[in-house]
């Protein structure tokens, strides 16, 4: 079965271990989509807002209401309590009361202790956004990119509708959970996009994630993003340049340049990091049997749209086939 191009989905859920680059990838995807003329919404889940600062440095927070950061590109943050207040408001017309009670600290702690509703309500909101239509009947958003919580929670996140569906027998919630589940299990609409680094811990965690996705959750996953990969430092044919540098005479003076030993040390470090990344990418491809999308490590760091654009191009290219 040929891969569906990433941007042709309705919903991309970006997940991965903490610090692997989920937010960066979500922002870059949104940029790629908007550049390609898709109307895209990028939604951060939780209390932090980091996407606006990447896509529009200096922008004010976008909050739950969300805001357009550039043409075709809207960003929002889904705070589950806001979503709950909205849901209760829609269900029974009590948004004001719900807000007040939900604002109470002890009540929040009580809610915090209770399982599942956060994920469900967040996904419910996403479903709602996916269903939104323009006056002409076209979807309000062509694509929704979700910057989901880190892996451990990411799975629970998608699995909740199924659990609710099986635990709750009747009522509106069961119906709503069913709609949400239908959306996330439809491989034409939804794909989970794991982000890993080519290092031991993220690679192992991603392999476990993919396995559990396949066994349990039934959400499509068709590629893995490997972020911040150190590129091969030397041109083909000169792979051991660091060793050759180190073999030069120690007293050689290069005008305006550090010693050959220093050059060799720089080169050796980058080569070692590159080889380490390549090794873990092989492990990742072998264990997941998925194609990998490698994103380069950007030396100056990811500061804003310019760097995101570099990553965006690599992101939407077809993944490298898993090694045979």
């Amino acid at each position, binding site marked *: 079965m040929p891969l569906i191009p990433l941007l042709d989905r309705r919903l991309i859920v970006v997940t991965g*271990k903490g610090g692997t680059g989920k937010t960066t990838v979500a922002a870059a995807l949104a940029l790629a989509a908007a550049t390609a003329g898709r109307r895209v919404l990028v939604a951060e889940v939780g209390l932090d807002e980091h996407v606006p600062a990447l896509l529009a440095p200096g922008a004010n927070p976008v909050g739950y209401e969300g805001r357009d950061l550039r043409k075709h590109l809207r960003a929002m943050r889904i705070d589950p309590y806001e979503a709950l207040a909205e849901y209760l408001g829609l269900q029974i017309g009590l948004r004001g009361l719900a807000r007040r009670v939900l604002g109470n600290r002890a*009540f929040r702690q009580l809610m915090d*202790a*209770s399982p599942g509703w956060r994920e469900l309500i967040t996904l419910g909101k996403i479903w709602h956004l996916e269903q939104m239509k323009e006056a002409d009947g076209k979807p309000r958003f062509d694509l929704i990119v979700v910057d989901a919580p880190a892996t451990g929670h990411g799975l629970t996140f998608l699995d909740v509708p199924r659990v609710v569906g099986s635990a709750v027998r009747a009522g509106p919630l069961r119906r709503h959970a069913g709609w949400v589940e239908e959306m996330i299990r439809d491989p034409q609409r939804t794909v989970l996009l794991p982000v890993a680094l080519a290092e031991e811990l993220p690679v192992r965690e991603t392999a476990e994630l993919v396995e559990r996705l396949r066994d349990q959750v039934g959400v499509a996953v068709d590629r893995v993003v490997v972020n911040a990969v150190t590129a091969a430092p030397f041109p083909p044919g000169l792979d051991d340049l660091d060793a050759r540098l180190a073999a030069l005479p120690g007293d*050689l003076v290069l005008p305006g340049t550090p010693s050959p030993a220093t050059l060799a040390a720089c080169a050796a470090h980058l080569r070692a*990091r590159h080889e380490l990344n390549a090794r873990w990418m092989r492990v990742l491809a072998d264990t997941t049997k998925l194609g990998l999308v490698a994103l380069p490590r950007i030396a100056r760091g990811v500061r804003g749209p310019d760097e995101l654009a570099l990553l965006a191009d690599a992101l939407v290219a077809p993944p490298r086939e898993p090694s045979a």
Partner: protein
Amino acid sequence: MSAPLDPAALVRDRHIIVCVGTGGVGKTTLAASFALAGARLGRRTAVLTIDPARRLADALGIAELGNQPTDLPRERLTALGVPPEGRLAALMLDMKRTFDELVARFADSEEARQHILGNRIYQHISDALAGSAEYSAMEKVFELSERRDFDLIVVDTPPSQHALDFLEAPRRLVEFLDSRLVQLLLHPALAAGRFGVRLFQRGSERVLHLIERVSGVSFLEDISEFLLAFEGMSEGFRERAREVQARLVGPDAAFVLAASPAKQATRHALEMLARLSAAEVPLAGVVVNRVHTWPGGGPTPDRVPTADREDEARRALAAAFAHTEGSGFPADEAARAALAVADGYAALVRADAESTAELTGRVAKAGGFVRRVPELSGDVHDLEGLARVAEWVFRTGPENGEDA
């Protein structure tokens, strides 16, 4: 304790060292390095790790979740320069079990214990109520500290944007148990006469019932069952939480912030720093891990080679290659490539210095230490790797990455 703050003084004098930081920056690695340094000073040291990489866990002799510290074999320690009186024991925290053990400790009967452990709310408490990953870690530290067979306990923490989840966990738990809402659910009759309270209670009950109605889940019932079962033990919890908290911010404990030079990551570290200081948590210092450093430690060049000598440098290098490699070797291409690689590397070094300047400046200004650990060429997955990291953390002198 007025010893100057530096990593060596911490592992020599303190009883508890907590490594905090955002995901993937090196908390586990640093915790283990600090512990190794402590053991080398002859202290009986335990390191409590959370989700270590498998190879590191193997190297520490903790291949499985085990809630008790396991000593590294004597001969390994000797090889690492740990004197006979020193000990290094590691454990991998089993959060669920720690919390269960705590319940067992305070439950007044076997029945109460079973009741709690079987309650649905309790089962989910681990995710939410008081950030129980953090709470469990704290509890374990306290338990080890009480046992008095360790001089130094180094604590790794779960990845968190909010370093304080950790410290606040015990307090949050107590606050929750004491909260008016919980009291109301427990003793509705007590509050019946108070108007404001009643209004609030009515509001929240209404919302709870609504949630029940739309969800079809017996939420209220679960919660009150949990609270009733828990009530008998809450005094014990409360007392314990206060003690844990006091010990953590006390003079025998120290917090070390782990950070990485990636731009966003230093921003997160700054946020964390602000939270720590707002909560008056004494921060001993910061270790910026995985920094690109210029080989040999000298100043990082702005350009390699300098622009005015570019051709000259390339020709000299090409000539040297031609000499050592003989004909047939693409000496000019190799010279170009080598200089470009070094130039790119210098850019990495400068970017890291720039992105960490604000963070290290603030910590130094507040009297904390600043250490930089270079990005090593491989993973840190064995004791030798830890020793190499420790070498950087415990070096002194400005030429070794220490800020003045």
